[in-house]
């Protein structure tokens, strides 16, 4: 579904990711784990062409997308929930969700999808007229994910959904991720520092260090890998 081949990208005259190659298959949950500053978020931003891809190719559904405009990429069904959630603070919850469906014109279906995300996160329905900026961190994360779902993505990129949240909320969020993957057959590409949680729900995983992929394999194998246990799982 998504294929990165020797991708390079960066800021100014520094490269943040070097020769990154990875693959996401249809229907999978893939996770990319790594320490702070390893280049995980840059990878996601490069996929959406918010950060320019300097070398290599990115293919989505067998089409090269690294020269396409960001909005065209979204239109193909590739959505991202960025790190830090990026709620539109002065739009209401409902308007935020509307923005998620910005490129869609099928009113009926949008309505149905909105009901669906409200059923996933009933709290959002309660707060639908509040400004996005007034929500708590966990609610904002739910809103960000819902907003991305409103675009009916084929592939959903999630950047650190657990950041700054209470353990209870984290568990809930990860449950929902699994649910979304199963119910809608949405492929999920999950970037996490919380490697333990991420690897538990993922099918496969990649490990990133200093802008390079250093290790990859089925999630269970990675969980069993002693290096990873030492470095990321704190065991």
């Amino acid at each position, binding site marked *: 579904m998504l294929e990165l081949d020797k991708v390079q990208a960066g800021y100014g005259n520094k490269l943040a990711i070097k020769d990154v190659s990875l693959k996401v298959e249809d229907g999978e949950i893939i996770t990319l784990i790594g320490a702070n500053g390893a280049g995980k978020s840059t990878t996601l931003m490069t996929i*959406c062409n*918010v950060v320019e891809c300097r070398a290599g190719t990115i293919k989505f559904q067998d089409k090269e997308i690294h020269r396409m*405009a*960001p*909005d065209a990429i*979204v*239109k193909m069904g590739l*959505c*991202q929930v*960025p790190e830090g959630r*990026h*709620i*539109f*603070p*002065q*739009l209401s919850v409902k*308007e935020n969700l*509307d*923005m*998620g469906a*910005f*490129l869609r014109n099928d009113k009926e279906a949008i309505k149905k999808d909105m009901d669906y995300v409200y059923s996933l996160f009933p709290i959002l329905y309660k707060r639908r007229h509040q400004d996005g900026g007034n929500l708590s961190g966990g609610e904002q994360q739910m809103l960000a994910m819902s*907003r*991305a779902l409103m*675009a009916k993505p084929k592939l959903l990129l999630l950047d650190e959904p657990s950041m700054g949240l209470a353990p209870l909320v984290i568990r809930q969020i990860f449950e929902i991720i699994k649910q979304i993957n199963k119910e809608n057959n949405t492929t999920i590409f999950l970037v996490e520092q919380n490697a333990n949680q991420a690897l538990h729900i993922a099918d496969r995983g990649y490990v990133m260090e200093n802008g390079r992929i250093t290790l990859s394999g089925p999630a269970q194998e990675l969980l069993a890998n002693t290096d990873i246990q030492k470095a990321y799982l704190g065991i």
Partner: protein
Amino acid sequence: MDYFIELFFSGLTRGSIYALIALGYTMVYGIIGLINFAHGEIYMIGAFTAFIVATVLSVYGFPLVSIVIISGLAAVVWASSYGYTIEKIAYKPLRHAPRLSPLISAIGMSIFLQNYVLLAQTSDFLPFPTLFPDLEFMEPIAHIIGTTDVIILVTTIVVMVLLTLIIKFTKIGKAMRATAQDRTMATLVGINVNNVISATFIVGSGLAAIGGMLVAAHIGQINFYIGFLAGIKAFTAAVLGGIGSIPGAVLGSFVLGLTESFATGYVSSDYEDVFAFSLLVLILIFKPSGLLGRASNEKV
């Protein structure tokens, strides 16, 4: 009492013109954080286009109503085209540049446009054709408020309402708000940010053009330099109301217009601008982000 009402209406007229120009400032600022110093020049170009088209039409003997409509449309179309083109040439390449670079580019653009009109047209003051004849029924109150004042007020109100509706309910309006609040995220939900910025410039410029045409028709003259002072004042109004906020720009404009009018009426017109700027300083001391601006308290 009459005197008070007269001053009040003259302040309202001024305020509505400031508002039409200030909206462009505030919208552009909201979306790309740029003080667009060339905005006053857009206003001037709108007025000039209206002047040229109206004169041509009247020479060829068109009826008055069609002259008003066609020249108004032409002013909006061309001013918007200028706004669009200026953004593409002078600001877009600087989107990731240091913050002050687009400001200087805007100042350069402003100097360029003034002299462009000066060279292509003339340095002289030109008489603007009478577009709005005095209405019969207005005669008894003409000494308090004239026909053009009423037209300016009504037009401004209609335009404001339309703009609010556009911003609030249309797709492009929502995209504008989203882009203003978080440009990266707007990109990620599939908004073409470049198009939204262009649209902002187009709408803002169109509003300024309406203002330009109304003012020129009101005072009956035009030259290439009218944009400068209008631009500075409208900018002041926008900041007064809280830059980036659309209702703020309107409120700020009316406050500024009324202050100037009353300052002239009750104190002295010598210090009209001193009052305007002092008011600005005072308000900003007590409300550092303007009347309706959001306090941009950074989270610590």
